C-alpha cells in the first residue's frame, strides 16, 4: 500500500455537519411557515377568541370577562340569523355554480382546438384580476340604470324597459348577483382542479369504459367523476373555506344590502367589530364561523380518506 496523502487530523467542529442532520435541517426549513401561521393566523385567532368573551369596545377598551353572553346576544339578533343563512346560501350557491362551470370548462378545454393554449391562459383571468377591479366592472353590469345585461335583454326583445330587473336592489336578485360574481371568480380554479384530475386518469381506463359500452354520460358520471372525487373535494374545501370567510365581493358590491339580504358573516363581523367599534360582538360573529367550518372540513376530509383509491 502506498499512502496517497497523509491524513491531517482536522479540528472537529461540533457544528460543521449540523445541516446534514435531517432533524435540524428540516426544522430550519419549516420554521418560516410555522412562524407565519403562528404569528399571522394563530395570534389573531386567539385575540378574536379573547375579545369574543369580553365587553371590549373601542369606546370602552377595558377588558371584562362576560362569558358567552356576546354569543347569546348575536344569536338573539334576527339580522345575525339572516346573515348566517345568507352565508350558507352564498357559499354553497357559488360553489355549486362554480363547480358546474368548472366541469364544463374542463371538458371543453380537454379537446384540442386551435387557440386552446391561449384560451387556457385567458380563462384564468377572473381568478387573477384584483377582486376590487372585477367587482366594479360587475357592479356596472348590474347597475339599475346602465346594466348591460338589461340592455341586451331589452335589445333582444325578452323584456321591456319597465320590466328590467333591479339586480342589486331586490333581495333575491342581489343574492343571485353576488353568487354569480363569486362563482365567476371561483370557476377558473375549479377548471384547473378538474383538468388536473381528468388528465391524471389513465387513457386505458377511459378506453376500457368506451369498449365496455359506456357512452359519454356514463363515462363521465360512473368513471371520471368518482375517480376525481378526492381531488375535487380538496378543491371544494378550499372554495368553501375561502367563500365562507370572504367579505370582499359583498363589501364592494352591495354593502350587505338591500336591507341585509346579502350580508355574510365576514362582512357582518367587519361592520360590527371595526366600523361600529363593537369589537366584542364583532369577534363573536367571526369566531362563530369556526365550528361551522370545522364540521364541514372534518366531514369532507373523512369522506376523502374513505374514497381514496
Amino acid at each position, binding site marked *: 500500500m502506498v499512502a496517497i496523502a497523509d491524513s491531517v487530523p482536522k479540528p472537529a467542529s461540533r457544528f460543521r455537519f449540523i445541516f446534514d442532520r435531517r432533524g435540524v435541517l428540516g426544522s430550519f426549513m419549516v420554521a418560516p411557515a410555522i412562524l407565519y401561521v403562528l404569528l399571522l393566523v394563530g395570534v389573531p385567532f386567539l385575540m378574536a377568541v379573547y375579545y369574543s368573551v369580553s365587553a371590549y369596545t373601542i369606546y370602552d377598551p377595558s377588558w371584562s370577562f362576560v362569558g358567552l353572553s356576546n354569543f347569546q346576544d348575536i344569536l338573539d339578533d334576527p339580522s345575525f340569523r339572516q346573515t348566517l343563512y345568507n352565508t350558507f346560501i352564498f357559499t354553497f350557491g357559488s360553489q355549486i355554480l362554480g363547480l358546474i362551470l368548472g366541469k364544463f370548462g374542463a371538458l371543453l378545454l380537454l379537446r384540442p382546438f386551435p387557440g386552446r393554449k391561449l384560451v387556457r391562459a385567458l380563462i384564468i383571468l377572473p381568478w387573477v384580476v384584483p377582486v376590487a377591479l372585477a367587482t366594479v366592472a360587475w357592479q356596472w353590469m348590474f347597475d339599475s340604470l346602465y346594466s348591460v345585461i338589461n340592455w341586451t335583454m331589452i335589445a333582444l326583445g325578452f323584456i321591456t324597459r319597465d320590466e328590467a330587473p333591479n339586480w342589486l336592489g331586490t333581495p333575491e336578485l342581489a343574492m343571485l348577483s353576488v353568487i354569480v360574481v363569486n362563482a365567476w371568480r371561483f370557476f377558473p380554479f375549479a377548471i384547473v382542479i378538474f383538468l388536473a384530475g381528468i388528465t391524471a386518469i*389513465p387513457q*386505458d*381506463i377511459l*378506453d*376500457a*369504459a*368506451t*369498449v*365496455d*359500452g*359506456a*357512452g359519454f354520460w*356514463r363515462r363521465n358520471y*360512473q*368513471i371520471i367523476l*368518482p*375517480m376525481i372525487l378526492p381531488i375535487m373535494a380538496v378543491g371544494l374545501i378550499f372554495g368553501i373555506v375561502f367563500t365562507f370567510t370572504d367579505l370582499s365581493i359583498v363589501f364592494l358590491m352591495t354593502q350587505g344590502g338591500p336591507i341585509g339580504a346579502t350580508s355574510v358573516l365576514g362582512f357582518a363581523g367587519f361592520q360590527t367589530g371595526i366600523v361600529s367599534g363593537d369589537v366584542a360582538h364583532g369577534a363573536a360573529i367571526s369566531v362563530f364561523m369556526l365550528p361551522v367550518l370545522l364540521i364541514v372540513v372534518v366531514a369532507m376530509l373523512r369522506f376523502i380518506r374513505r*374514497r381514496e*383509491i
Partner: protein
Amino acid sequence: MSAVLARDIVKKFGEVPAVNGISLTVPDGEFMVLLGPSGCGKTTFLRIICGLEKQTSGDLLIGGDIVNDIPPRARGVAMMFQSYGLYPHFTVRNNIAFPLRTQRVPRDEIEKKVQWASQLLGIDHLLDRRPRQLSGGERQRVALARALVREPTALLLDEPLSNLDAKLRTSARQEIRNFQQRVGLTTIYVTHDQVEAMGMGDRIAVIDHGQIRQVGTPIEIYNDPADLFVATFVGSPPMNIVTHNGGGYLGFRPENFLPKDMMNGDGFTEFSFRVDRSEYLGSERIVYGVMDGFESKQPITAKLPPAHVAEESIRPGEWHPFGVKNSALREFDKDGKRANRH
C-alpha cells in the same frame, strides 16, 4: 362469436400512415396473433377493430356486417388492455359487471354472469376486493373476466402479458389459450413477443410499418418466411442472411447450420465457417462466426445440440467445414422477397 374481416384499412395521423392498407380475415373462433415490432401499427389496427379509432379508409366487417360507422359500444367486441384498464373505484364484482350494466342487463342476470365468469377464471373469492388489492396475475384475470362476461363477438387483447413477470407469463399464456379454445372465441392478440406469437396463435400476421408482411400458421411463418423482415424478426437467434448471387440473399436457420460430419446423404451445401465466439446455454450451444466467401451484416450463428458439440471439437479461431441441407436453404431476391417458394 363472429368472423372479423378487414379490407384495405388505412389510418393516417396527419400525413403519417400508422396502418397502411391492412387486409385480414379472421375466421370465427380463430386465435389470430398480430406480431410486429413496437410502432408498427398493430395496436392502432386493434383500436380500429374495436372502434376506439376510426380508419381513414377501408372497410371493417364483424360477423358479416360493415361496422365502419358503428360506435364501440354497439360492436359487441371486448378488449383487454396492456395495463388492464380496471376501474380502481369499483370492486372486482362491479368491474366485471360494468359491461353488463351498460347493456341494461337485469340485476339477477348480472349476478349470475359475474359468478360464471369469475368461477371460470378462478377469481370468485376476490369479488369484493378492489383492483389495487390484487396481484398482477389476479388483475389480468379480472380484466379477462370483464372482457368475457358479456359474451363478445370477438376478443381483442393488446399485449396482455407484458405486465407480468416471466414465470407468470408462461402460465398465463397457457391459460388464455386453453380458455379461448374452450369458449371458441374469435380472438385477436397483439404482441411484439415472438415466443407468445408462435406458442399461442392458430395463425400469425407479421406486421411492419403498417403493412402485413405475411399471414400464416406458426410453422409457415417460421419455415417459409415471405421476406427478409419476417425471416429475421421471427426466430431466436434469427435466420442467418448472407448476400448471394450478386444482389440476392440466402437464408438459413441457425439450427440447420451444422458441422459437416452431422450431415448425412448428399443433399446439402457445404460452407467454411470460422467460429469467433461460443455461448453455452445448457440445452444447446450457440456459436458466432463468419463464413468464407459470403458477406453478412450480422455474425453468422449456429445452434448446436450439446451432445455433439464437445468443447474441443469446435474451437474458436479455426475454420470448420459446416453444411446446410438444401431443403433448409431459403433464397430471397434483391428486394428481400422469397425467390424459391414451393
